[in-house]
């Protein structure tokens, strides 16, 4: 298990068995999709790209050498894939994106970018690690059409229990946000 615990250091894919590879997938899938979506703005395509990335990783696991951390490697790979696809899709479209990029180049500063990416990974990980029921409550709470009473009814629990879960979720996620807010302030305040 320890091998798949979001490795930070140099990392050897070939040493993983299918189960370990699966947990690597489970832990990083949503995050990597998010990174693709930031580039191509399409969840379906983002999902396809990330799945293809994992298939490639598995098939070439003997020959892939990861010198950086797994996180950095995976993020870079899927972002490149998304950019390549964009390029292939429509050259004209690409120019528009490039033009937009110029105007918002502040956001593209590499340090800030990686910082934000990491923040998302920590948030998603923290949310997925919430106890099952609490996670359900939290995910339902993200839907704008559902109020606490709706969530309570849907899960067959009391409104107070929903509130309790929300309070505990926020407290947990706050720990993650705390560090990333610093980043935010450094750049914009």
């Amino acid at each position, binding site marked *: 298990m320890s091998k798949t615990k979001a490795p930070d250091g140099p990392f050897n894919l070939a040493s993983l068995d*299918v189960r370990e590879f*699966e947990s690597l*997938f*489970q832990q990083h*899938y*949503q*995050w990597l*999709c*998010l990174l693709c*979506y*930031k580039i191509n703005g399409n*969840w379906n395509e983002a*999902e396809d790209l*990330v*799945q293809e990335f*994992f*298939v490639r990783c*598995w*098939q070439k696991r003997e020959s892939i050498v990861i010198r950086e951390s797994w996180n950095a490697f995976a993020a870079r790979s899927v972002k490149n894939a998304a950019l390549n696809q964009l390029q292939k899709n429509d050259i004209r479209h690409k120019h528009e994106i490039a033009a937009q990029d110029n105007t918002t180049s502040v956001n593209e500063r590499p340090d800030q970018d990686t910082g934000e990416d990491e923040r*998302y990974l920590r*948030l*998603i990980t923290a*949310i997925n690690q919430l106890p099952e029921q609490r996670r359900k409550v939290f*995910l339902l709470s*993200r839907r704008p059409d559902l109020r606490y009473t709706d969530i309570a009814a849907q899960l067959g629990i009391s409104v107070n229990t929903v*509130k309790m879960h*929300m*309070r505990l979720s*926020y*407290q947990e*996620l*706050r720990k993650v*946000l*705390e560090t990333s*807010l610093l980043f*935010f302030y450094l750049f914009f305040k």
Partner: protein
Amino acid sequence: MDPEQNDIDWEKLEGILAKPEQERISLKEQLLPQEKIALEQLEQLQADELLTGALQLDTQHAWNKTQALIGGVSVKPVRTIHHAWKKWVAAACFLVLGGTAWLLWRNRSAEIVQGQSIQQGMAGHTPSAKVQLITATGQTLEVDSLRQFSEKDGTTIYLQQGAMTYRPENGPSVTNNAGDALMNTLIVPRGYLQSLVLSDGTKVWLNADSRISFPVRFRMEEERRVSVQGEVYFEVKHDEQWPFIVSVYTPGHDTQNSIADAEVQVMGTSFNVKAYNNTIYTTLATGSVLFRPPAGKPLQLSPDNQVTYKTQTGVSTLQKISSEDFTSWRSDDLVMDKMSLAELAGLLERRYDVQISFSNESLKKIEYSAALHLTSQVADMLENLEQTGLVRFAVRDKKIIVLPFEK
């Protein structure tokens, strides 16, 4: 833990964020410093559409798809398909392959001279034996001609929507406690499926070439106990007081007079047992069961667990599976995950009461991964399999022969 952090009234903050901007700003001014920070964090979290979108992605589904792509490295799999969508993919593939194979088939049909066509060869084929019930007095009845029958103790047995149903005459299934309970045995030969409702309301499905012995009424002074052979799916009526125990017998062991090869103790649940050879498979769909080998520790199963027990070595292993794949035989749906053609042939022999032989041993190793529906006629089934382009079938004297596809 930081005590201040726990004091944050998140509900109040959420309320503030829901307010119109003007009001929000003035309310924010009144907050304590740490509340202000918390409010900003909350705002950040709530406004994050990227995060919301990502959290809605179905990681498990995505993994199943990915696994299907990386998993297929067997001899020459038709295709590896996983879970809910696999049936549709399989259906689509069969349609596509069906079209091409049909063209091939038309060109080829002239060449098949030694054997008859499958349809002609298997025309009029019916299983050789019928489903039988052995009553407490040892009388043998044919189930399809059975309208209604009464056992000595007054229990009536009748067919209800194809299921043999046991209904005690008076009140719940309690017998007088004197003597042995009346036992019945239902024998399902090759070529049939049969379902059954026991006197306690437990539902039972028997696959082809299987049998079950059970009391006409359960005696409510001890556990509920039945004995099975072959493959049987149970939906046990929940009753905490009276545990339900299934004794499993491998072929050649008498379900009435010898010692069981293993037992499954049930706590109100649905599960499948399969014992067609020296391996007993116990698959749990819902609830909880305890698998008891004759020696060694019992194993507790959770839903979607399967225990494989080898009677010869006494080794049992527990693994995680999709229980639906192992219980869909009740509706004649077959899910194959790298199933060898040899195993598939054995299954078809049981299901249709036919004989299948191989012209070449290497054909037995061909693996199939697909979901398909077992058609009512074996000939249709064989034609479907031919469409995969891996083998073809010939029929001589109602016996099916597997041939390589090429020539």
